[in-house]
């Protein structure tokens, strides 16, 4: 198709630079739309962005807050990259985070685990409980064809009310003077942080290691091959004799477990107690969907996209403090970004080329023509 001097063609292979460019453009559009919200709030959009930049990226004290927010986003996001690669639409990272936080709290406050092993036991328990929470919808899907979008989403509410009930009821801390918190964790159950920041570095390391491990799993292992085939073409997976139950269970074990670890990090590294579910996770489980989407199936890219979303969360704090906007404005931001990204999806399969006048072929198009001895246009 030709629009003036610009030629728009279907592309056969995706290119990294184009994917990056389209994604950045989508982000810009989202920022522009968010500007309308600032403006309707009586804040000049450019001034708002200026305040946000100064309050986050240019403020040495605020920079660590970006990383702090990126930790749960990375863990949950890498898990979702894996789940999405296997075409399992896990919307349940939020609930898996809460379950991980709950299990960690039990280990910290109520288990007889010796102090030296407490942190390790918390991470292990968090991983297992997040994984179990993720495996239930996987089993429901493969045994009874229950749509996983619905079941994972609903499991979030179960987890939310479970935590809410625990902190209002059986686990309500006697030392908390009526607040709906558990007691504070003992020192042995607190994840160490870097100096003056809220960066609980062991969880951060886990996140980075997990991203690398998932990248290795997908590229180099038999199980990763099966996950990719299952995700790219389920029918071919059937034909290749790949067991969908096994791949899906593996994927959700890792994805749920990773989200569980994020929950451990939040209660063990930040809050040091179990509290209202909406304060444990500020919607990290949902924002992780954007992290995974932006990463376009690449687990290592999730490190970068988690930092970006961490920046959005940190700027939410700035907006609240410096611009007196409600904290939930970050949710609006996230929604706009996801909306624009999904909207840009179709643009990825096209190539735009500057070709004034002539009808010559681009080198890439010529290579395609060589690759296909018979043109597909005659079908």
């Amino acid at each position: 198709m030709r629009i003036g001097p610009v030629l728009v063609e279907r592309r056969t292979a995706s290119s990294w630079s184009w994917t990056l460019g389209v994604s950045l453009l989508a982000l810009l559009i989202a920022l522009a739309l968010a500007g309308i919200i600032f403006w309707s709030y009586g804040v000049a959009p450019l001034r708002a962005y200026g305040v946000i930049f100064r309050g986050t990226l240019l403020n040495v004290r605020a920079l660590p807050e970006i990383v702090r927010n990126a930790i749960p986003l990375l863990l949950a996001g890498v898990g979702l990259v894996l789940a999405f690669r296997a075409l399992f639409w896990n919307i349940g990272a939020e609930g898996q985070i809460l379950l991980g936080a709950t299990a960690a709290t039990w280990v910290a406050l109520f288990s007889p685990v010796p102090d030296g092993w407490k942190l390790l036991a918390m991470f292990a328990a968090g991983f297992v409980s997040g994984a179990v929470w993720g495996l239930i919808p996987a089993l429901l899907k493969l045994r009874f064809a229950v749509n996983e979008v619905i079941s994972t989403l609903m499991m979030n509410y179960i987890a939310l009310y479970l935590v809410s009930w625990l902190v209002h009821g059986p686990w309500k801390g006697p030392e908390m003077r009526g607040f709906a918190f558990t007691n504070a964790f003992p020192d042995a159950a607190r994840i160490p942080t870097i100096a003056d920041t809220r960066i609980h570095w062991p969880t951060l390391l886990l996140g980075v290691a997990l991203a690398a491990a998932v990248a290795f799993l997908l590229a180099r292992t038999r199980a990763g091959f099966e996950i990719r085939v299952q995700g790219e073409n389920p029918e071919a997976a059937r034909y290749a004799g790949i067991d969908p139950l096994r791949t899906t269970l593996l994927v959700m074990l890792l994805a749920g477990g990773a989200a569980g670890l994020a929950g451990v990090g939040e209660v063990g590294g930040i809050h040091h107690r179990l509290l209202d579910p909406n304060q444990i996770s500020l919607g990290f489980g949902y924002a992780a969907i954007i992290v995974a989407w932006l990463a376009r199936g690449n687990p290592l890219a999730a490190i970068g996209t988690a930092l970006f979303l961490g920046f959005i969360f940190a700027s939410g704090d700035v907006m609240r403090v410096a611009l007196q906007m409600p904290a939930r404005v970050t949710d609006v931001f996230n929604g706009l970004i996801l909306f624009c990204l999904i909207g840009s999806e179709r643009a990825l399969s096209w190539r735009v080329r500057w070709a004034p006048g002539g009808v010559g072929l681009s080198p890439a198009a010529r290579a395609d023509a060589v690759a296909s001895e018979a043109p597909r246009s005659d079908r």
Partner: protein
Amino acid sequence: MSRPVEPEPPPAPLLVLKEITKRFPGVVANDRVTVEVRAGEVHALLGENGAGKTTLVKVLYGIHQPDAGEIILRGRPVHIRAPRDALRLGIGMVPQHFLLVRRHTVAENVCLGLSGTRALLPSRQVERRIAELGGRYGLAVDPRAPVWSLSISEQQRVEILKALLRGAEILILDEPTSVLTPQEAQGLFAVLRRMTEEGHAVIFITHKLDEVLAVADRITVLRKGRVVDTLPAAAAGKRQLARMMVGRDVEFRPARTAVALRGEALRVEDLCAQNDRGLPALRGVSFAVQQGEIVGVAGVAGNGQREQVEVITGLRRATRGRVWVLGQEVTNGTARAVLEAGVAHIPEERIRAGIVGTMSVAENLVLRRYRYPPFSRGALLNRQAVSGFAQRMIATYGIATPSPRAPARALSGGNIQRLILARELSAEPALVVAAHPTSGLDISATEQIHTLLLRRREEGAGILLVSEDLDEILALSDRIVVMFGGEVMGIVPASEANRERIGLMMTGQRP
């Protein structure tokens, strides 16, 4: 272009496609193509896949706009911007895949989009017109029957009726016989001749030489987007046409050698299975394939062949009956168990099920073998082994790909099929289940695939060949199983088989 040699000037053409050029990204689909169609003739467009036949008629029907060239109808240049324009000018098309509303009746389908009908459907007037046209051209079909109850050939008649009722003087048929039995194809040819007698012109797209010689008055051969020649059918021979299509000499009957049979590769007994809608599709099928023979399964699409292949390869449950591979029972085994019993499967839907389009050619070459050594070492993939294997396969099987790392979907249909055959046959299977292995492929790829299957047979494998192309079945098989309505109508040795006999059995008559 050659001119007819008659002394008197040729009749003025009804339609001229003049110097039509149509480019797509990376390819010139039509390169200055000129075709003249006369009133009262069947004009065949003959060519391999990708020769530009379909593109040309899509330009004529207004689906594509040409980059250059013009269309002259009854001596006047016309602009056809959309199928609507084509219909107004009296050009109708019967598409390869029918566009009918399955729940509606024939008359309702014919009415759809027909101008001048009343709001209430279907009017008696249309039913009368259908009956009248049906009688005139031999297109018998009950106007009140719902489309889902019709056979494929009846549905095709409905499509032709639709075009005629819209006043089509020029009728385009795109690969119309690919879904028909030989007898049904003969019936269609009779209809086309009646139409030309009444002054209609028919443009008939095909790559089958026998059909062209049977029905066409004149033939335009296309190759790689260009016209090779236009010649009267009476002056054309099969060999000559094939050479024009392919650009070199073609062997029609691949060489076969006698092979000693070495015991059973496959036995199925009393096999029953349901189709996707839960209706019985296989009703007690029994036969065997020896090692060293090709057993062809002939039948019109939808008579249980697909379900049979899926049950044997572990992709569908048998509700009754048993399957043995090399004497080992694999009834209702998983696809992996059947694979490990030594069965190769060339699937019917090669792009949808046979490859993962987004993954590389190298990965697709081990799609069913990645879990075995040398491609896996423990839990890890052995990437050297995979890429080394890919390079060998690309060279041995002549897979045209820019690199082993290119995504498989960038390959043409023929090369995708070469990839699948390389993967399946290089595992040295004892049984090859090949479903429609050459459908939609050009002559060169077809020839190569036939050679590969025959070679595998000579190496001692049993081959179950399911195909709708009766010529392919007749050319390759040692024995032919004919299926109808989910049952075996009979098993015929190749020496006693011919088109007529098999064709009758395909319509449900037992020998």
